[in-house]
């Protein structure tokens, strides 16, 4: 019952947060200088044309009215029409979402594998020079943001030793037989390893750039958490039972050490998703973030609004899921 009330309260705060985001975005982009209508029309358009188009996009009403109309539409799934492409925003945004989701999840998986491996190895080799080396590498990975790692990776694996693609999502000359925009998943489902590899070799560097800082955080937090768990009596007991050190770490200590790392990974995952904006730009990857930057440059107000709201929904959604997962996994909270 207490959990139920906590969940309701959490949902309410999420709703407040999302409304806040909607209001701020709406107000901020109405202040954008440069008239998007003037940019749409060919030179020599009459004032009458401008007025007609302005009315068509509802830009002649007061900001407050515009917000009510837009918010009402959003609640019914209507995010308006993109000014540059003249297509519904929702369709455009949902068309790009799979690319960004696949990239983010791939990065999360890479980060978890590298970070987990670093934490376990560091714990296994504690007190040695190797542990110190892992710590130094971790510190560096943590200090430098994804944008710079992306550039470093472009130089290393795109120029110096060109093994991976450094721009785009798929080789343009390839004719894709796909019906969805989840290229990576669909290439697997359709059993097309050739396409799958082409897509992966495009995604690997941007995903790695996003993953490196998160891997460092996972490595650090998990290692700290393991260190504390390793001092507990039950771990000592399992050691006296004669289990190998590796078994003690991975089978006995790890399950209890994972929980504290989980909440943090959730929050950090939202940072990773935020990072896709610039990483997609850097690697010319056709996802949401790249579209967002183009939308800002083209002053495409409805599209910017739609993308920012979608990002906010993803961010709050991830946080919500992590909180609920934490509550469900942690016996102390479940029965508290």
């Amino acid at each position, binding site marked *: 019952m207490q959990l139920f009330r906590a969940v309701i309260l959490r949902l309410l705060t999420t709703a407040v947060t999302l409304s806040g985001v909607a209001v701020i975005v709406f107000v901020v982009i109405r202040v954008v200088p440069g008239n998007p209508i003037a940019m749409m029309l060919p030179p020599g358009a009459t004032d009458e044309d401008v007025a007609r188009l302005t009315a068509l996009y509802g830009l002649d009403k007061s900001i407050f009215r515009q917000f009510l109309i837009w918010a009402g539409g959003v609640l019914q799934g209507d995010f308006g029409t993109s000014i540059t492409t003249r297509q519904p925003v929702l369709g455009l945004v949902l068309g790009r979402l799979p690319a960004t989701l696949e990239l983010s999840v791939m990065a999360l998986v890479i980060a978890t594998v590298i970070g987990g491996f670093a934490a376990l190895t560091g714990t296994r080799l504690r007190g040695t020079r190797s542990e110190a080396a892992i710590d130094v590498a971790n510190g560096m990975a943590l200090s430098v943001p994804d*944008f710079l790692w992306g550039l470093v990776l472009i130089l290393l694996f795109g120029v110096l030793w060109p093994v991976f693609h450094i721009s785009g999502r798929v080789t343009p000359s390839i004719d894709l037989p796909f019906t969805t925009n989840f290229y990576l998943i669909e290439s697997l489902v359709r059993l097309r390893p050739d396409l799958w590899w082409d897509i992966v070799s495009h995604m690997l560097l941007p995903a790695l750039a996003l993953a490196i800082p998160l891997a460092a955080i996972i490595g650090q937090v998990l290692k700290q958490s393991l260190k504390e768990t390793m001092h507990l009596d039950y771990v000592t007991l399992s050691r006296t039972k004669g289990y190998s050190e590796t078994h003690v770490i991975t089978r006995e200590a790890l399950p209890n050490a994972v929980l504290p790392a989980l909440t943090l990974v959730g929050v950090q995952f939202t940072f990773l998703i935020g*990072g896709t904006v610039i990483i997609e730009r850097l690697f010319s990857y056709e996802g949401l973030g790249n579209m967002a930057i183009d939308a800002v440059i083209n002053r495409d107000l409805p599209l910017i609004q739609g993308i920012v709201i979608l990002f906010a929904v993803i961010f709050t959604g991830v946080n919500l899921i992590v909180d609920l997962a934490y509550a469900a996994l942690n016996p102390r909270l479940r029965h508290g």
Partner: protein
Amino acid sequence: MADGRGQVRRRLGLRLWLSAGWLTLLLLAALLAPWISPKDPLAQDLFLARLPPFWMDGTEPGYWLGTDSLGRDVLSRILHGARVAMTVALVAGTLTCVIGAALGLLAGFLRGWVDMVISRLIDIWMAFPPVLFSILLIAVIGPGLGAIILAIVVIDWTRFARVVRAEAMAQGAMDYVASAQVAGRGRTGTMLVEVLPNVLPLIVVLLTLEMGIAVIVEAILSFVNLSISTDDPTWGGMIAEGRTSVHQAWWVLVFPLITLFLTVLSFSQLGEGLKDRFDPVLR
């Protein structure tokens, strides 16, 4: 154990000195750029386009790190770019710190409705993708150094507010705060005279980290071509140019990237080093 701790401290010391050394060098470069630059950073010469750095064949004397596709000297542009980077780091970092820390301190120590409002704002801010938010703000405010600084302050104040709020809350629950109030200090007095000095080391560490972040934000904004006017050399602008010609002239990308990398690393290592210095367990 005592030995191990000594080793840790020595390593910290070296790390701290190297970072401080690099940043001092940059600050000097920024201040002296017009006098120490070998060439005019804006001078274009298509006959000298894409000259390689000095150890390779086909260079011209004086162009140590080569030239870009318009024949502009890379080294001179990096030195001048340090001016923008250092200004943004110092000014934006400090302003963000003051505003964010003040709001965090108020929320954490006063609690009540102040905390309610500030915490809700932090929640809303955390739901924005920061890079997109900064690009959007620059599009609204218009380009320019002041706009970048303003955008960084508007976006990053939550970094300070969140951490300082939590720390102020923890400090507020301690006995010394209650004692100060019993001794007759007012709430504002307690906050500024008793709590603030105890939160200050944390704020200094965050400030150092924020300076590194500010440099990156500026570089990202220049990279998407939304920073200050395109004439002025910036590291991000050079990187954007280098990215497009990376197969023909890698040095246009590599040298500003190394500079930016070392700068960000130094700010963060300085912050980490200070954190360890302030940590009573290690001391």
